[in-house]
């Protein structure tokens, strides 16, 4: 006896099957994400969604503190609030330090997940070398761990570099008074020489080497400054005719090299630590506004160089043959807040980037007012 299936039931069955296949595909459960979207020196990435390059499936992104609503709240990381986190650093003990720029303070995310203020007072900009909440910063936007476990902070609005002990005592490491504008705000300046008399203009990114030299992305002056262990400030030279635009973060590699993210020109510069810096070419074609940079070392000579792109709201790895999109989407849209695998994750104006071991990155997700962790499962790919 032949049984006939009603055509509507058949149609529903086919649609259901197609839907299941589609869901499985989008969840990444079937099929390998196609790689090498544009190939060559063009930016590459993982899965293609709507024709736009996306991050890698083996990369995982999670929010470790804060949420998009800005504010100030200490406590468990899920309940903590930040306002414009601009830079992040990982301390020797594994604690994570954040330059919480619109709150004008330095916050710490402990290994237990508790968020606390280390120095400065939320919502009270100023300049004061004191301890804990008595100290004052003005929109700090850079932070790095120093040789002795203390922190160096780019006190961007005060045009100074500050030093913060893990007990919260704040002192001025470099930078002098500069003229005030009609709103009685310091305008910054440019002067090399002894650190106490040196002048900076909107310093942002910081990096510290094993010889206690401090490298400063002096964004307002469009150059990289070096504060030697002896306290002498100098300017790193650049080679060629190109000029640094607005350097905002820098990172040191294991091969005695320095990497600089240049936000306004969309470029990346690299060179020996004593200079000169040279602008990278085709290998970084496609960046919009590189804002953060970090180097993950894997052994004495191997390193992966990673870029936070505030213009495209995503993370890249620099490779010899071109950029590799590791998290977020290069789709021309304005970013978002989404945890998950690299191809699904979303950022909003990611600013600072810091390495946290061989396969972890921390992102100060400025636009989302939160701190993100990026885990490169399998170690990611290595720079040549």
């Amino acid at each position, binding site marked *: 006896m032949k049984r006939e299936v009603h055509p509507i039931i058949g149609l529903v069955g086919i649609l259901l099957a197609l839907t299941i296949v589609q869901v499985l595909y989008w969840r990444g459960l079937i099929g390998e994400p196609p790689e090498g979207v544009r190939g060559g020196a063009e930016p590459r990435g993982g899965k293609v969604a709507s024709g736009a390059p996306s991050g890698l499936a083996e990369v995982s992104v999670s929010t470790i503190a804060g949420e*998009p609503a800005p504010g100030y709240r200490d406590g468990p990381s899920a309940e903590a609030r930040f306002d414009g986190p601009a830079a992040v650093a990982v301390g020797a003990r594994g604690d994570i330090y954040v330059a919480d*720029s619109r709150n004008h303070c330095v916050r710490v995310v402990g290994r237990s997940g508790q968020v606390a203020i280390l120095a400065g007072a939320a919502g009270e900009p100023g300049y004061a070398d004191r301890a804990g909440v008595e100290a004052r910063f003005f929109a700090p936007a850079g932070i790095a761990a120093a040789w002795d476990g203390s922190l160096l902070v780019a006190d*961007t609005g005060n045009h100074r570099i500050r030093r913060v002990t893990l007990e919260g005592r704040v002192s001025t490491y470099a930078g002098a008074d500069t003229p005030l504008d009609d*709103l009685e705000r310091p305008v910054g300046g440019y002067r090399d020489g002894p650190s106490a008399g040196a002048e900076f203009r*909107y310093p942002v990114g910081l990096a510290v080497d094993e010889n206690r030299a401090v490298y400063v992305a002096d964004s*307002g002056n469009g150059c990289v400054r070096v504060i030697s262990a002896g306290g002498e400030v100098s300017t790193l030279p650049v080679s060629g005719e190109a000029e640094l635009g607005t350097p*905002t973060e820098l990172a040191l590699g294991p091969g005695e090299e320095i990497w600089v993210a240049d936000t306004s020109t969309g470029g990346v510069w690299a060179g020996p630590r004593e200079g000169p810096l040279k602008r990278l070419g085709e290998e970084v074609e496609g960046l919009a506004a590189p804002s953060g940079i970090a180097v993950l070392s894997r052994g004495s000579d191997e390193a992966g160089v990673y870029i936070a792109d505030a213009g495209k709201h995503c993370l890249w790895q620099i490779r010899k043959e071109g950029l590799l999109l590791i998290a977020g989407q290069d789709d021309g849209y304005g970013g978002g807040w989404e945890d998950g695998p690299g191809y699904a994750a979303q950022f909003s104006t990611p600013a600072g980037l810091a390495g946290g071991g061989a396969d972890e990155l921390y992102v100060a997700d400025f636009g989302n007012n939160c701190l993100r962790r990026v885990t490169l499962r399998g170690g990611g790919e290595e720079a040549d």
Partner: protein
Amino acid sequence: MKLRLLAVTVLLAAAGAVTIAAVRSARPRVLSEVGGRVLSPPTGSDRWVAWVEGDQEESRLMAARRHGGRPRVALIGRGLSGLAVAEDSAFVTRADESEEDEAGASLLRVDLRTGTSEALARLTTGAEQIAFGDGWLCWREEREAALPEVPFVVAAAPLTVLRARSTNGSGDVHTLAIMGGRPGEGKGRAELVGVAEAEAYWLERRTSGSSETTVFRRVALPRGEPETLIREAGRRAAVLTQDALVWTAPSLEGAESNQFVAVKRRSLRNGAVKVIADWLSTTGELQASHDEVYVQGRSWLWHLGSERGEQRRLRRRPGRFVTGRVVGDEQYLVLRSRDRLAVAARPLTWWSRIRSFIPL
């Protein structure tokens, strides 16, 4: 018989003329054609109406006596902005003639009777808004970002600055508030609402993710501590009358909060708040003239009373309408005529219709 016929004819002609005049007087009367663009829409006092036209390089402050006066050029300059009119004076900022990036601007008082001007203050940039009252002049300056290409350096973000000085130009320039815009945000984060009883009122627009909140604040002049009065969800507007702060709020009854707004009023004397209108279109523009509050809607001009239910429609918007502002008993309009703009006056009362025939 002939005399009676003549008398009736004259009477009919007079009645007809009066009727035609009455009808015609309700229509907008063109004051002048605009040369270029309207940079500041018409605003005025009991005696004068003024506006700024032209372009940024050469802008002209135009002024006319209310109720029938002929417009004339009161001031020519670069980048005239932030117009306010008080009695026989206009306050406006004029950009320096320098080509340098560091060029600033001057806040001027222009005597509209004589066309003479005097500088009251030096500004870094031209003021976006000027408000006055009780001997004080307040203005809003928008400072450009120090690092415009970098969206996350808060210290270098654009700023909105509210400042004040006495109207006679004596004493210091006081900074009332400095608001750091979020990096990447453009102008217009804060708006000056007005000055009343020696207090300056303004509103701040604060964004959080995709939501926006409007916060209404005030400060006692010249050096008080800023105080937050009201917070309303969404992008709101406010005006100041002689005795109340009036602002738009989410509709209390309208199901679609993005289509309808309510209007609330807060007494300056005792802080009492009440709703004076609801179900108004979100496209309407809140305006105030003396103690009267108006909403210039998509098609109508509404006059709001002091209580809910007292609102009434005054006039239909003319078809060539670009923008308009109620000044006293007249509405001054910018109308599009073919490819040009014109400034016109429309009486809102019978008395103002009659006065438009009799320049005083």
